Each structure stands twice: as structure tokens, then as C-alpha cells.
């Protein structure tokens, strides 16, 4: 087994290209839902960049911890008959979350200072951070108070939402599947049982998030604001760095445990978020037809800049603040890094700027101790100079600022070079990269009782005897739309009936040779067996419980998964949410033994 001091390099590639950007004529904004837009147009961030903002001017937003309410305040009353196993897991805490349109200040410079209209949760974005504990089931009533169609100030989003608990071991009716949406004036009750899958403590998860999953409109709705954290604690990852329990991990906690969600956003001249695939760009080109071809469709040929592939914003926001700063003490911190999308991937590195202005890229303190993959604590921490975060990936990392002196500034640098069209990385590593945020090192206040444990959670056993069948899912592209096994998402079609209590092996294949897909399947974590036919070795960051597959071009991944404890319909989809909305999704269902396909 590798020691945590072994440095793992994640796909670092030599060389680099700067971000291309061109000034061009500004055009009037066209409201777009992102659902119907043509190919062949240059992404508008290259044509109409967001207004400038002073970097590192505003502090990082620290989301409040969600506060429970008395169940008597919920009218009508919670109804256990609407939830599977409600009485096995009676809620210990009740919450009420109101989704409404409000202004949110992404930055204090004009034009941002007046606030950008957003879909907020309890008045803010990201939404409140839930602190949940294993053994303490929670109940969340979500209320849709968004304005009716045509009445709202966010032109691109749909005021109809379903909130998915990403990687929760949650029954279908509380999972927030795409079809379980609520319209303005409606509410939906979510029951989170907060027990590990199969009652196996090795299945305990820690960093979860919630986000909109509305059928057809996930990309614009998440972009408009609908995302937040749901943290689960247990007796080992106990939210207490002073925990007297000798087995507790004592990871940095409280003020020193900071969830960070990254969204890249584009803004209009008046500081409003825009979701806009239209911009002055290259015109579609035309090719001559063959004289024998009577099909009218070969006349036009798209350009290279196909916008259907993704939505890239040009302002990187952390907890919905553009390029924030954070005062940190010279001690250890746990940062929960989450890429909230819609389409940009990140490759984060650290860079040091000394008080005298010297910039240092190589320093022993400039590294991450990666403690989780997709929010699940690893068998052992992995030490790395960088961490690659695809959409919906969650990596908990520990950064030890005690290596730095007060007055030092440490930057979080994104060096991922994305294709202009948003469909995936170019494969190049940017030299300079973009500075996502800055940590300003202050003297430590008192001792640092937190630890980086040598060992954390063992992986559950993989038992091939449990495997009932194998399935293959091929992710591809067909004439403008994204397909799975050649098909578009059809909400009325169940693509797999899986027997409860069984295990299956799924092969996930990318039939494309240029685009990349973060593939997410709901409900239970899986373990990757093979990447392109090669087994995943101990000590690899992929040797983990995961719910996202980083499916690069031409890649094929095989995983082992189990489906336990509940019945019902869930989905698997590409988490580049533009791809998802454009039909790259399947539905699967957990059925009683003997009824599977």
C-alpha cells in the first residue's frame, strides 16, 4: 500500500496555452433556456465577456448551517405514508427550505454590486449547508415560491424544480429524480434516512450536495442558483477535531472545515447572470452538394465552435462570489471542493505569493492531502500537487497553511484548459491558469488539534458471486444530441430493471474521441474495477467509492455496484448538465428479486 506521502500526479501534461479571448461587437442579450440553440456559434464568453471585477476583493461566502424547525410548523403535516421505510427511520430533525427569486451579490464592484437575480434557497446561494448525522434521519420540506412563468427576473430558468440529493442513499420519491418536480406554489417532502447502504459502515459517505434536477431544465436551473451542501457526519468523521474518541479521524472541523462550490458564470453588462449560447461568431459555413445527393441536409456545415456541447462562464465563482479571498490561520484546513458545473472542469493547483511579491510555484506546502473521492473518505489520504475536479466531483482536501508565514498569499489556480465549446478538456495544462481564489495567511490562533489520519475507511468487499448480470452503456452523440446506447432520454422508458439486493457490473463507454462526460448514477456508490481494461490498483485515487465516472475520450470503465434497501426509479446521466438536458440520461429501477430484466 502506498504511503500518503506518495505523490500522485493526476493527468498533468506539459506545455500549455493561454485562454483565448477576443473582443467583438456586443449584441443584445437573447434570453435562452439553453434547450434550443443551434450549433455552429462561438460561445458568447469569447464574444461578450462579463464586466470586469476586482479580484480577491470580497470574502468567501460561508454558507450558514441549516437550522431545524419544529414539525408542527409544517402545514400540512409530514405524512410518513408517502415515504418508503419512513417508520424504520423516523425523522429526528425537520427542515423547511424556501426556493424563491432574490438578488444575490456575486461581487461588490459595479455592475455586480446591485445584485444578480437568482434562484435562492432561504434567501441565498448556495443554499444552507445541512449538517446531518448517521442515525439521525432528516426531513426536508422544500417550498417553491418562484414566480410564475414570464413573471420572473431570471429569464433563462424554469420556475419548476426538483431537488436531488447527490449521492444520498435515498428512496426514489425523496431522491429528487427529474420527473418529481414541483411548480410555483407547490412543495415536496424529502425524507433522508441517513443510514449507510446495506447497513455497512464502510458505505458511510461524508460530502454530499443537493441541486436542481428538473427534467429538460437542469443546466439553467442549477446555473440560476439551485445548489448547496449536505454534509454527513458519523462517529469517526465526527465534526470535531478535538474528539476524545481515539478512533475519530479528527479532521479539521468547525471554522476550519469549509465547503466550496465552484460555478463558472457569465454576466451581462448590467451584472445579471446570463445563460446565452447566442453571440456574434463565425457563420455556419456551406459546402457544395454532390450532384447526386438529393438530401437537403448536406448543404450547411457547422463550424468547430459547437455550443450545444456545454456552457462555459468566464467568471469563476466560489460559493457564488467571484474570485473571493479567505483569511486563513497558519494551520490545517479541510476544504470540500465541489464542481457545481454546468460544464467546466477544473484542475486545481496552489501557488504562493510571498509578502514581498515573489511568486513561488514550488514549495513543500503547496499540496493537497486528498482525503475523499466523490465525498467518500478514502482508505488512506493521497498527497498531490493538484486535484482534477470534473462536474459534480467532490474532493475533500486538507491544506496545511502552517508551512507558510503570516502575510503570504496562497492562490487556488485552475490550470485546466477547456475546449471552447465546453464539451471537455483540451488535454493541455495552462501555464498560468486562472486564479480562482486567494488564501491570506494569518498567524494561527492557538494549537492545531486536527490531524491527517494515516488510515480512514476501508472499501466494502467486491463479491463477484453477487453479480446477477452485466450491462453496457455507450455514451455517444447523434446529429446534434447526446445519446446513451443510441437513445435519447425518454422519461416514459425504464432502461434497466435491477433486482434489489443484487450486484451488477456496468461497462460505461465513451464512443466519442474528443468529448468528455462526467457520468453520474444515483443512489449507491460503485467501485471501479477497470479503466480501459486495466485494473485499478491500490493507492490509486480511483480506488474509492464513487458516484461519478470521469469518462474521457474513447475511454471504457467497468464498475461493480450494488442496489439495496429501497425500490423505485432513479437515473444515470452525464453531469455536464447541458449534455444531460439534451437527453444524455437513462432511467433505471430497483425491482423485487425475480422481477429484473
Amino acid at each position, binding site marked *: 500500500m502506498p504511503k500518503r506521502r506518495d505523490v500522485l500526479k493526476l493527468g498533468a501534461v506539459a506545455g500549455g496555452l493561454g485562454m483565448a479571448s477576443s473582443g467583438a461587437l456586443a449584441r443584445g442579450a437573447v434570453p*435562452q433556456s439553453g434547450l434550443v440553440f*443551434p450549433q455552429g456559434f462561438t460561445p458568447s464568453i469569447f464574444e461578450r465577456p462579463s464586466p470586469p471585477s476586482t479580484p480577491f476583493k470580497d470574502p468567501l461566502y460561508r454558507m450558514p448551517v441549516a437550522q431545524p424547525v419544529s414539525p408542527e410548523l409544517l402545514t400540512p403535516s409530514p405524512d410518513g405514508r408517502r415515504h418508503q421505510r419512513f417508520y424504520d427511520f423516523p425523522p429526528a430533525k425537520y427542515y423547511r427550505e424556501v426556493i424563491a427569486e432574490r438578488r444575490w451579490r456575486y461581487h461588490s464592484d459595479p455592475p455586480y454590486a446591485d445584485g444578480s437575480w437568482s434562484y435562492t434557497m432561504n434567501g441565498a446561494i448556495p443554499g444552507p449547508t445541512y449538517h446531518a448525522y448517521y442515525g439521525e434521519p432528516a426531513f426536508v420540506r422544500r417550498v417553491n415560491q418562484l414566480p410564475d*412563468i414570464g413573471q420572473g427576473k431570471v429569464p433563462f430558468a424554469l420556475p419548476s424544480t426538483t431537488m436531488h440529493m447527490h449521492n444520498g442513499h435515498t428512496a426514489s420519491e425523496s431522491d429528487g429524480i427529474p420527473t*418529481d418536480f414541483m411548480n410555483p406554489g407547490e412543495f415536496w417532502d424529502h425524507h433522508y434516512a441517513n443510514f449507510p447502504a446495506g447497513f455497512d459502515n464502510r458505505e458511510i459517505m461524508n460530502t454530499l450536495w443537493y441541486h436542481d434536477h428538473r427534467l429538460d431544465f437542469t443546466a439553467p436551473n442549477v446555473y440560476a442558483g439551485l445548489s448547496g451542501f449536505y454534509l454527513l457526519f458519523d462517529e469517526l468523521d465526527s465534526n470535531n477535531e478535538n474528539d476524545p474518541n481515539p478512533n475519530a479521524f479528527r479532521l479539521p472541523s468547525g471554522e476550519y472545515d469549509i465547503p466550496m462550490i465552484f460555478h463558472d458564470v457569465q454576466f451581462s453588462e448590467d451584472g445579471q447572470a446570463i445563460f446565452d449560447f447566442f453571440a456574434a461568431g463565425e457563420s455556419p459555413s456551406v459546402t457544395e452538394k454532390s450532384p447526386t445527393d438529393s438530401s437537403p*441536409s*448536406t448543404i450547411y456545415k457547422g463550424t468547430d465552435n459547437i455550443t450545444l456541447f456545454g456552457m462555459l462562464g468566464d467568471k469563476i465563482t466560489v460559493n457564488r462570489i467571484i474570485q473571493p479571498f479567505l483569511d486563513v490561520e497558519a494551520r490545517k484546513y479541510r476544504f470540500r471542493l465541489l464542481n457545481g458545473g454546468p460544464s467546466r472542469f477544473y484542475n486545481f493547483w496552489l501557488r504562493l505569493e510571498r509578502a514581498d511579491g515573489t511568486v513561488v510555484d514550488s514549495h513543500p506546502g503547496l499540496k493537497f492531502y486528498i482525503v475523499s473521492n466523490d465525498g467518500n473518505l478514502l482508505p488512506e489520504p493521497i498527497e498531490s500537487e493538484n486535484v482534477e475536479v470534473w462536474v459534480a466531483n467532490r474532493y475533500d482536501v486538507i491544506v496545511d497553511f502552517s508551512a507558510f508565514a503570516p502575510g503570504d498569499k496562497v492562490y487556488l489556480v485552475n490550470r485546466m484548459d477547456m475546449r471552447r465549446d465546453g464539451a471537455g478538456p483540451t488535454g493541455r495544462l495552462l501555464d498560468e491558469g486562472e486564479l480562482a481564489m486567494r488564501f491570506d495567511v494569518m498567524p494561527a490562533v492557538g494549537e492545531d488539534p486536527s490531524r491527517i489520519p494515516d488510515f480512514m475507511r476501508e472499501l466494502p468487499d467486491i463479491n463477484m458471486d453477487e453479480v446477477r448480470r452485466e450491462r453496457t452503456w455507450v455514451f455517444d452523440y447523434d*446529429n446534434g444530441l447526446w445519446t446513451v446506447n443510441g437513445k435519447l432520454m425518454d422519461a*416514459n422508458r425504464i432502461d434497466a430493471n435491477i433486482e434489489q439486493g443484487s450486484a451488477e457490473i456496468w461497462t460505461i463507454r465513451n464512443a466519442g474521441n474528443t468529448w468528455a462526460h462526467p457520468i453520474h448514477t444515483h443512489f449507491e456508490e460503485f467501485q471501479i474495477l477497470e479503466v480501459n481494461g486495466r485494473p485499478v490498483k491500490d493507492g490509486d485515487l480511483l480506488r474509492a467509492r464513487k458516484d461519478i465516472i470521469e469518462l474521457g475520450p474513447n475511454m471504457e470503465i467497468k464498475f461493480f455496484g450494488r442496489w439495496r434497501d429501497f425500490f423505485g426509479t432513479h437515473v444515470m446521466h452525464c453531469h455536464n448538465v447541458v449534455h444531460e438536458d439534451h*437527453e444524455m440520461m437513462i432511467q433505471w429501477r430497483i425491482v423485487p428479486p425475480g422481477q429484473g430484466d
Partner: protein
Amino acid sequence: MSRTDNTISEEETLRIQSRRKLLAGFSLTAAASLPALALGSMPAHMIEQRAARVIDRSRNQGFPDTRVTAHTGEVFRFYDDLVHERVVLINFMSIKREPDLPITRNMARLVKGFGDRIGRDIHVFSISYDESDTPARLAEFAESFDAPAGWKFLSTTPEDVIALGYRLYRTEGRFRSAMHSDLIHFGNASVGLWGTMSAEISDVEFAMQRVTSVMPRNATAGAQLRRAGPRRVDSEGPVIHHRDCVGNRSGES
């Protein structure tokens, strides 16, 4: 009236259409390759300029405002006359391919589901991409589906069909080969919300709900909160969702 991009496009369209009429009289073989003939008379750079003009991204939500002929014989501007300020359903079809790709049959189920809302709240446009689908043939086709007045079967020049398709995904020079990858587009042009769904519709009520999701609900302000779901575990309902009382607003528990 000054010559705008639109009027230039229309003049071109009229010229092309009159040439097609002339050519159509000559032979059946000519009819098979009409687009080639029609476009063969235009230099490539002109077609390119035209494509850029027809898809004007700065207005009409990028929809080409092309001249289209309905199966009724009426001539419209696609965006200004038919889409602007409306909730619409749009699909592409051809009479010839309907047996293999029954898009119109599925659209007809959706249209039937909406009943008298079609033509009043929702307008439906089926655009033929087959140049042999003349307004007369489309009229016959429409009748076979009992198409109400709010459902129009449109034809236009091949290049304008492509421009429309370009705006609505049909872009890469090949038609989708199978039903499961064809689409019905729905949208509310007055607010700019657009969606798509697979043209394979197995649950009409749910498909209708997707369409009405882009329409104002005109909920009464201050009305009591309504439970959207989940419905009771022991209640009957579709496996694909847990909404309570789909399709109506009387779900208050």
C-alpha cells in the same frame, strides 16, 4: 420600405420558388433533385451569406423568419406570424418517412390530448423537410390526422428548411435514422423558454405536462401551498414519477 435582411431573404425565396415551379413542370427526375437545382443557381458564397442572414442571432431568439407555406395554402413568416409571443410545438417530418418514423402520429396524440387548447393556447407546426411534400399533399396528410386549425403543416424551400433545422438541432447533414432519436420541440416564445422531448411518446399526459411547464399557471397569489408530492407509497401511479394528482391542481392533501 427599405430593404432589410428579411425582405432580401423573402425576395430570394420568391425567386427560388418561381424557378422551382418552372422546373417542376419539366420532368419527374428533376423533381427528385430540386434542391440541387435550386441551389445550383446560387453561388456558394451567396448561400453562405444567406445562411448567416437567415439565422439572425440578435432577434427572434435566433429563429429564422423565413417565408413558409401552410397546408392550407396560406403563406406566413415563420417567426413573426407563427411563433412570436406564442406557446408552440414544432417538429420536422416527411410524409414518405412517416411509416418508419411515426413522428406525426405521435404529435397527433399530443394534439388530441390538448383538445381545444390547440389553436388557442398552443400552436403546432410540423415542418416537412421533403421537397415532394407540397401544400396539397400536406393538406391530405393533415386531414388523415384530423388536424385542427391550430396545427399547420409547413413547407418551404430546402435551404430554409435547413435554416430552421439548423436552429432546432437538425444540423449535421444527416437525418436521424431512427425514431428514438427524433424530437418534438416545445417552447414559450414570449418568455424565451424552450424544451425538447423525444418524439416517442408513451405517456401523453406526462408529455402534455412537459409542454405546459413552460406556460404560466396563473396561480392565485396567496393561495394555499399545494403538495406536489410524493404521493402515498400505497397509491396507484406511474413508475416514472411520484407526483400527486398529475395534470390537475387538486392535489391538496
